[in-house]
Each structure stands twice: as C-alpha cells, then as structure tokens.
C-alpha cells in the first residue's frame, strides 16, 4: 500500500446565487413546480436568443479575485454540443478556450497545523441543464427545465491533492469561500455545490500520472472522502492484479459505498465546441475588477489572521472558527457585546455548541442557542453568578428551549452561593461529619482537600462558589 501515491483533482460546480438565470430572465429559485420557471429561452424555443446576465460575470470575478487568479479581460462563451432530453438546445453554453478566471491558488489545512497550497487551473461560467425524472411515470421520462440555464461556476483544480483528506479539505475550503463571497448558497443536497473528482494512482516517485477515473454524483463531503478512498483502493487492487485502469466516468453509489462505471458510450462524445455566435465576447475592464475587489468582504484567510493577531486565538481555533462563514458570523455576534470573553466564547462554540449541533445534525445558523444567549451564559460564569459546571446545565436547558441563561438560572434556582457565611456553615457541617479526613489533611495529605470541596459542592447542589469554598476550607482546616 505505502508504495502507492494517489493523485486527485476536483471539478466543482458552484451554482451562482443570481436572482435570474445566466441567459434569461427566469427565476433561479429552487423547488418550484416542474417547468414553471423556464421561459422560451430556457426551453430552447426556435428563434429565441440568450442575453448574458452580468451579475453572473461579477460573481465569477469575485471568485477569481479571491483566489488571486488572472481575470481574463476577454473571455468567450462556446457551445458544447450533445443531445440529451434535459439539454433543450442540444448544446450547453459554456466557456472552453477562453474562460473568465485563469490560474489561481488557495491554501488549505487538511489537519491541525498542516498547510498545503492547491492550484486552481481555471474557473468558467456555464449554464446548467434541466433534470430528467425517471421514477415518476411508467416507461417514460419526465423533463423538468426549471434548472436549465441556472448559472454555474465550474472550478477546476490542478491535480495537486494526494489523499481523500486533502481533497475534502480543498472542497471545504472552496465551499467556505463561495459562501463568504455570497456567490453560492453551498447547499449540497439541492445540488448548488457539486464535486466531481478525478482520481489516479501511481507508484511513489513516478513522474507520470496514472490513468484517471472521473467520479460523479457525490453530494456530501463525507461521500467525497469515501468515494475517493474506494476508488484509490479499487485502482491499486486492479493494478496489483495485473489489470489496467481505463479512463472513464464512474458514479458513486452512496448506499453501497462504491463507484461504478457509467455506460462507456459517454466516453465517445465529441462535443464539437465552437464560439457561440449568439453572444459577444465578455469584456472586463480594470475598473470593473478594481471595483469588485474593493467590494469584497473579509475573506476567511484575513479573518483568521485577524483573530490570531487581535484576539490572540490559536492558529487551530482561528482556522476552525473561520472555516465556515456562519460559524465566524456566530462567533462575531457573541463577541460584539463581550469582546473580553473571547477565549471562553471560542471554547463554548467549538466545544459544547459544536458538539450539540453535530449530535442534532444542525447547522450553526439553525442553532436553538442564539449568539446573545451564549454571550449571556459566559458572562454569568465570568461574574460568578454560576459556576462552569452549572453552566453546562444552563446550556442544556437553553438548548431545550427553556429561554435565556438568566431565565434558566432564575427558574431553576441555580444562582451561585457567594455568601461566605452560608458557605462557612456548609463547611463546618462537612468538617464535623468527617473527622478522619480532617486528620489526614492535617497530617499533610493535601489531596484530601478535593474530597472536602466535593462534599461541600454536593451539599450546596453545586451552587457554592468553588473559589470561595477552596479558600475557606483551607483556612478552617489549618
């Protein structure tokens, strides 16, 4: 196994979040009744013509600027010709020889403390096809053209990745970036963000690339990792058994966790690309680019650096927080009121909150605990209203919908006991009840202090301030 190296490149299709389609005025909203969002242009009716939606161009440029890529001042739409029922015109309008975004790169972090630079070959604009629906009509196929003409940005990476883990890290990074840029909603279930992986293997040290297979139909990062790992194993086993990898498109089947060859007929396609005579070349001026650059939001890398520099967060935590735009926005919202509590807030967000969200399968934007609620919770620990331990109970109650931190503390009577008289009474009782342990402590067995703290906390139902308990105990046990 270890003498093999896998080589992976990704083609990511990000659906651009424009209001209308790339070449028509029809809406791009997801989920409408079939064929209700397809106008004459989307249907490929005779005589109708495409008109470019400049917003899609701006979005592509935003992406290009963010990955430090060359933006082509003159790019060309081309027709990719093939017949398929959900491709109304018999050709897809795409970009071929002159894409709008040229070479760029992005830095990814496959694991704690790891960094790798991944090259991006190009990113081009194209229209999506419609959908064929095979399971609703007996012996017939339904065609839904609502998606036809939806703008896509196809982002093609260099074959720079060497493991499924790296590929996933890259895909996540692009996913995060397009959401930061607000050019794609990133919804993988609805197909707004789709990954195809080109996978090949070679013996370590070999310079030439092996024959690759293109994996399609992957709709989550988890499946991306599995599909690539399966494919690497398959190819190595195949070669080990004396076989040869053939260049082909393979579909990932999530249920059986395997990749399967698609019909080989697909391979023979000659797309007969040529410049689309219905569309003028897309020209972009330096001013356009400057304007778009000036309007870019703070990008993940910049945000991360700011967290490290200004909030003194660790590289790892800063990476985790900025990896997902919504997480960063959540963090910044909690920070707004109590910037001095940043360290504690980070721990709660990346610890208990992340755990709870993960367990419930929720996105942070859907968290039942809102940023202000978390800020209040952390503030109540800081001002000694509750202990860290009680805070976990408050957190769980907030998660269950019992209201804000203050509501829960009030309703459940969790306010910490800070009255030293009350604490002294509790301590006196505990000391009186455990003479043996008192002797041990006085004989120098420091560890026994923990026993006393535990007993006092137990008696107080966890509400006694642990710092005070410690101090008073030491005093009394002297």
């Amino acid at each position: 196994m270890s003498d093999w190296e896998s080589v992976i490149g990704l083609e990511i299709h990000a659906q651009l979040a424009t209001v209308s389609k790339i070449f028509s005025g029809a809406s791009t909203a997801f989920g409408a009744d079939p064929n209700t969002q397809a106008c004459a242009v989307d249907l490929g009716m005779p005589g109708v013509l495409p008109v470019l939606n400049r917003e899609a161009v701006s979005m592509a440029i935003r992406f290009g600027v963010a990955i430090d890529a060359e933006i082509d001042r003159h790019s060309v739409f081309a027709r990719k010709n093939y017949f398929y029922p959900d491709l109304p015109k018999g050709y897809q309008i795409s970009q071929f020889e002159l894409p709008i975004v040229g070479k760029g790169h992005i830095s990814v972090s496959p694991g704690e403390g790891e960094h790798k630079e991944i090259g991006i070959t190009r990113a081009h604009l194209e229209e999506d096809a419609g959908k064929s629906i095979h399971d609703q009509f007996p012996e017939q196929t339904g065609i839904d053209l609502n998606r036809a003409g939806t703008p896509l940005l196809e982002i093609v990476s260099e074959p720079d990745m060497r493991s499924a883990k790296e590929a996933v890290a890259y895909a996540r990074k692009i996913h995060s970036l397009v959401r930061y840029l607000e050019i794609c909603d990133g919804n993988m279930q609805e197909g707004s963000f789709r990954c195809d992986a080109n996978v090949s293997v070679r013996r370590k040290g070999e310079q030439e690339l092996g024959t690759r297979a293109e994996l399609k139909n992957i709709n989550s990062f988890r499946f991306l990792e599995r599909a690539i790992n399966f494919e690497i194993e398959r190819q190595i086993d195949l070669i080990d058994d004396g076989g040869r990898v053939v260049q082909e498109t393979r579909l990932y089947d999530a249920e059986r966790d395997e990749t399967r060859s698609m019909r080989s007929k697909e391979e023979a396609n000659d797309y007969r690309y040529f410049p689309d005579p219905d569309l003028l070349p897309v020209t972009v001026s330096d001013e356009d680019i400057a304007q778009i650059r000036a309007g870019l939001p703070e990008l993940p890398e910049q945000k991360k650096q700011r967290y490290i520099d200004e909030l003194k967060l660790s590289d790892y935590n800063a990476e985790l927080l900025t990896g997902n735009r919504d997480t960063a926005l959540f963090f910044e919202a909690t920070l707004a009121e109590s910037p001095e509590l940043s360290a504690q807030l980070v721990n709660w967000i990346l610890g208990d909150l992340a755990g709870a969200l993960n367990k419930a399968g929720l996105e942070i934007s859907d968290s039942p605990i809102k940023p202000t609620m978390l800020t209040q919770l952390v503030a109540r620990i800081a001002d000694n209203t509750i202990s860290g331990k009680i805070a976990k109970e408050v957190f769980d109650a907030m998660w269950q919908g019992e209201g804000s931190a203050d509501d829960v503390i009030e309703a459940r009577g969790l306010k910490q006991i800070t009255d030293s008289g009350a604490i002294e009474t509790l301590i006196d009782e505990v000391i009186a009840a455990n003479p043996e342990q008192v002797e041990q402590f006085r004989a120098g067995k420091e560890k026994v202090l923990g026993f006393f703290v535990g007993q006092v906390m137990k008696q107080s139902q966890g509400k006694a301030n642990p710092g005070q308990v410690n101090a008073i105990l030491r005093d009394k046990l002297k």
Partner: protein
Amino acid sequence: MTRSVIEICEGLATGEFSSVEITQDYLARIAQHNPALNCFISVTGELALEQARQADTVRAAGNAGALTGVPIAHKDLFCTDGVRTSCGSRILDNFIAPYDATVIEQFNQGGTVMLGKTNMDEFAMGSSNENSYYGSVANPWNLKHVPGGSSGGSAAAVAAGLAPAATGTDTGGSIRQPAAFCGVTGIKPTYGRVSRYGMVAFASSLDQGGPFARSAEDCALLLQTMAKFDPRDSTSSEQAVPDYSAGLGQGIEGLKIGLPKEYFADGLDSRIAGVIETAIDELRKLGAEIKEISLPNTGLSIPTYYVVAMAECSSNLSRFDGVRFGHRCENPVDLEDLYKRSRGEGFGAEVKRRILIGTYALSAGYYDAYYLKAQQLRRMIKDDFQSAFDSVDLILGPTTPEVAFEIGAKTDDPVSMYLQDIYTISLNLAGLPGMSLPVGFVDGLPVGMQLIGNYFDEAGLLAAAHSYQQVSDWHLQTPGLTS
C-alpha cells in the same frame, strides 16, 4: 395591383380606400394567384382583416403612423404569436410560437396588416425555394422558373403583387438573390441592424432580416420600422438609426462607386454583364465616379461560407429533437429512436446535408482545418472590403451570375446551386449591407444589380438605388400574370 407602399400610404391617408378594402383586394389576389405561385405557406385572412379594422380605427382617431394599415407578408421564419411558423420544414409543420419576433412586434406596433407567411427554402437553406416542405414557388415572370431563395415566397409575392411588401432574411444572399430573380428591390442591412430575436436561426453570425418592396423608397420606409437596437439580441447594434426616407434625395453626384473586377470575371452571364454596364452608364450620367477595384479573396467566399454556415446550422438545428415542440415520430422505442426518426422524418435532404457537413467541420481533429481556417479567411474577406472602402463609397456588381433558372435544373448539383451565391455571400461574411434592384431583363427574366455599402450605410445604398430608380422604370415593370 402594382401599388407601392408609398402609394398605399397615400391612399389610406387621403381616404381613397380603407385598410380593410385594400387588404381584401390583396387577399382576393392571393386567392387567385397563390395556387399557381405557391408564395404563401399560410394565408392569415381573418387576422389580416381584424388588423386592418384596427388600423382603420387608429387612423380614424388620428393616430396613424407611417405604415398604419399597410398590408405586408412575412417570411415564415419570423415567429408570430399564435400563427404557425414552419420555416418551410415538416419538423415545424405543427409549431405555433407563443411569442412574436422583434421584427414582427415592430411591424405590429407600426400598425401593418399581416396577409400571411411566405414560402421559403427549409430553414432558409437554398437558393431556389425548391427545398421547401410546402413545395417550390413559381417565378411570376415565368412559372417554370425558380424565384430564387431562400426568401423566394416573399420576393415572388411582391413581384406578383400579392403583397406590396414582405420581410425576408439573408444569410448568404437570401434577400438579394430572389429580389434579383423576381425583379424587386430588397435590402440586407448591416449585421446587427435588425434584431434576430424570434427569427429562427440558420447561421447566427450571418443571418440578417430585411425588406422586399417595389422600390428603394418603399424599402427605406420598411427598414425604418425594422432597424432598431434590441436588448434581447446580444449581437444587435446600438448605433443610431438615421431617417432613411429623408436621406433618399441626397443624389449620387460625385459618389465613388467601385466595380470589383472579380465580380465581372468568368462565370458571369455576358448578357447580364451587358445589362449591368448599361445601368452603370446611367449612374455615370447621374454624376457617379466609377472605378475598378479588386476584392482578391472573392473566390474564397463560397468555401468559407459553407464551412461557417453549416457549422453554425448543425448546432442551431439541434434543438429540433422531437422532445419539446415540432415533429415527433410515432411510438419511439427509446431515446435514440426518438431523435433519429423525429429528425430523419422532419428534415429535408438539403438540411440534412448541411447538418452533416457542419457536424463534420466541427469534429475533433477537423476543427482547426475547417472552422478555424474559415474564420481566418473570413477576416481576410472582410479586410478586402475594408480596404476597398478606403477609396470608394459604394461597391457595385451583378447580384447573381445567371438569371432565374428552371425549376429542377440544379437540384442534382448542389455545388452549382451554391455558386449562385458567389456575389452575395461575401457580404454576409463581412457583415456589410447590400441591396439588389432590378436593372433590366435577359430572356424575359429580371436582372438584379447589387449595391454594397460600408457598415451601417444603408442610407447611402437606398439613396443611390433611389437615384437610379428616378431615371429608370425597371422596378415598375410587372409580370403578365393571367388576369
């Protein structure tokens, strides 16, 4: 029924006749002569009368525009909302667009009356109108001869007085060549001058709509309605549209007219050359300065055109697949069968030939040798014209090498058919405007003279043609149809 558009406008304005009356006259004439001529694929009598009534109401209210109430025929590849648009093809025999082409919309807004949709070579592919699913059209000057193509129905309808004006489209000569064959005046504007929206595409980088009429003066009026920037067509020009009618009187005194020696070389019927030379003498008398020029790459235009046009059409016609509209074969067994039989049954032989050639020209391994090379030659052809226009204002020559040939004479020889377009095709490749006007007869059949202008100089072309028509009467001749 040889009234010009201008005369009809005057008659309507003075109340000599109403739009309904003149429309009824044309519909009657169509009923009488169309069976022999086959100019129309669809005659829209009821719609025409309804539009005519509306036009009369508008006029009575004092809101008439320049063309309100004027009957017109439209080539059957301009989409018309609610009226079949067949493109002369079986594959669209049942197709009714739910939208109007921009050109149709503009004529409708101008208050014209649509008499019907005219016959044409299938998908505008042809030079004789013999490639129509609806049968060939007869040339009104001699019913045994072709009217030219692809806009043969429109040209013949105007020549025969079945319509005072008609729209056409020109991809390689499809307005100018039938105008020449039928003895009418037709203009192909600069590429981008007239919107292509709703005009079913043959070759997108070459197609351009334009009018047919009896005179340059009429064409000026019609082009005024057609020429407009259209945001729905990305290749449409934003260049301001001048007042063509107002520019007609500018004369040709001192105008420099170039005669490309390649247009008078071998292949041109010497009798046509003689007719053209007589017309040139007239222009000289009117004060034009005539000089010989050279367009050295003329010979490359036909091969270049047939690569570009066929490559584009092979892709443009992919949408006719039997899935969403148009002809679908009976009981397809699977998807491939659906495609093969729907297209196999729906398209005629010439369309299939061009799709095959175009598909080949774009195929992997051939693209550079054909498509890319053709694009380079196209640039050279364009450069020829650019440098010619450094020294002349207009270019002049014959529209066609022969007069209208007999129906069936060239159907077995596509290359000879393609050569009909030798003088017209290079303008489409260059995107330049050109027009054809009648200047005489050979064997009782009309001879057309082509004028070629610089980009967006339609006004100059129309003015030169108008000057000639002021001192000649070829455009006033009408074929002697029985009754």
